[in-house]
């Protein structure tokens, strides 16, 4: 199987997945709704109190300051939320008879999975755009120039790519669609134990250690710096490193599962 066919088959599978997204919009709407709900909750319910607790605000912070603080976390949650849907749609796809047909065809084997991942990345780009527009509507103004924005979006796409491979694997590993909708839940929970909503310094030592060493914290810190137009320092490299590791693991894991899983 030549590389040209791998690319072509993947493009064909991507087109199939894009049609699926268009034909079955309710899942996508639910997945974009979730981070928006968190955004509203955190800005309007907790915002005034939390904003006052931010470092450098000396007890007089406000909602708009807090909105700026949580923006990168909300964007990462958007990516995680779409990734959750990827596990569900992969698991659903595996229950359909057409997957068995693909396996009996002389096509690039991974193309079925690549189609899911690329579809998910495109879906994430849309979701991130919608959520960003929503934040701007609520008064979010970032200090970043076009280059900062571009870098921030690039990082989010990379995160989306990594989490998509991981959740495609979860979708394949799940024995049912229900399981597939549960296993990736930790991706939506994990940002809470990071620098997304409060500075990690505010956490007790054990938890703080976890928060500072899990992948979402450097990703969120790097995004925050990029969006504010500040130099992101080493965080951006740690973030990219995590994404590469997660992508590679997810890809190899998914490939193995796809070959192994019998036709249903």
């Amino acid at each position: 199987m030549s590389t040209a066919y791998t690319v072509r088959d993947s493009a064909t599978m991507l087109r199939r997945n894009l049609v699926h997204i268009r034909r079955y919009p309710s899942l996508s709407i639910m997945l974009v709704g979730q981070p928006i709900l968190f955004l509203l909750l955190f800005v309007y319910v907790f915002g005034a109190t939390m904003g006052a607790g931010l470092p450098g605000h000396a007890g007089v912070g406000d909602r708009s300051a807090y909105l700026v603080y949580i923006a990168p976390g909300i964007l990462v949650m958007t990516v995680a939320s779409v990734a959750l849907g990827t596990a569900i749609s992969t698991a659903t796809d595996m229950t359909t008879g057409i997957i068995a047909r693909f396996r009996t065809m002389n096509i690039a084997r991974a193309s079925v999975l690549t189609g899911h991942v690329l579809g998910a990345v495109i879906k994430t780009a849309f979701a991130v755009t919608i959520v960003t527009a929503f934040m701007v509507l609520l008064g979010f103004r970032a200090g970043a120039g076009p280059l900062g924005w571009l870098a921030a979006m690039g990082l989010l796409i990379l995160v989306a790519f990594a989490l998509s491979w991981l959740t495609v694997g979860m979708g394949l590993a799940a024995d049912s669609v229900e399981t597939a909708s549960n296993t990736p839940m930790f991706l939506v929970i994990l940002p809470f134990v990071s620098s997304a909503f409060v500075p990690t310094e505010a956490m007790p030592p054990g938890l703080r250690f976890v928060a500072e060493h899990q992948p979402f914290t450097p990703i969120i810190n790097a995004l925050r710096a990029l969006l504010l137009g500040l130099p992101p320092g080493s965080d951006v490299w740690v973030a990219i490193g995590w994404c590469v590791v997660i992508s590679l693991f997810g890809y190899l894991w998914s490939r193995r599962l796809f070959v192994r899983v019998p036709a249903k």
Partner: protein
Amino acid sequence: MTATTLAIEVSGLTKSYGDLSVLDGVDLTVAEGTVYALLGPNGAGKTTIINILSTLLTPGDGEIRVAGADVRRDPAAVRAAIGVTGQFSAIDELLTGRENLRLMADLAHLGRAAAARTVAVMLERFDLVDAADRRAHTYSGGMKRRLDLAMTLIGRPRLIFLDEPTAGLDPRSRRDLWAIVREQVAEGVTVLLTTQYLDEADHLADRIGVLDGGRLVAEGTAAELKRRVPGGRVSVQFTDPARLAAAAAAHPHATTDAQALTLQVPNDGSIAGLRSVLDALDHDGVAGLTVESADLDDVFLALTGHPAEARASEEIPA
């Protein structure tokens, strides 16, 4: 080496799941351009054979060559030569019929213009033009099966596997499907199909293999198998019990159903056999007459000594 004329060569094929043996040493050869039917009840191992030959399942033991390639060593070459229509619909229900065919044409690496042309031809040929732009989940069972088969054939495979292709279809759809299979054979395609219906094997197949409990218990042409099966009969329905009793006396081997006023006379299907039954009957007093040929139950009873019923414990994981 006869690989050029044999589309399928299987010897000593086994497959088991843990302690459960599903295939127990199957030998099978199918010549190119012919139709071979695997006949058997649920649980006999038909689907397992199809899954192994189409590279979906890894075999246990045995030598298996499909389209000249070894299924273990060169599955890609096997896949390049085959088309599969399984028992369960393998269409994308969120896509329209046209989109499903286009997907297959693209995966068969047809060029843009060729793909569009082929899709149009297939829609026409499989009577799906009116439904082409409707989502496949709205299709009837017969339409889904036609689309499924069209998707299998769009890449012009040399060898096609059909796993119970007419299960659950109404008689008309069944005949349509048979006609499509015959067209393919006329074009030189080799077909391996599984079925639970003797008449289907009879209509389509050059050779029939009877599968029972993971073993081929008989093999031959339809005529050869039928000769080994004494299951055919003539059923005569009478107008009153007295006539039935009189006829029963003339046919000592017949079975009598007094309530239905019916006499069943064993018959080998030959004209001579039928005539001898007719000659012994009065013109009046006969309400109706049916000639029944051997069915799967008869074949099974004759060849295996037990009726053809699915044993739930031996259901094959698909």
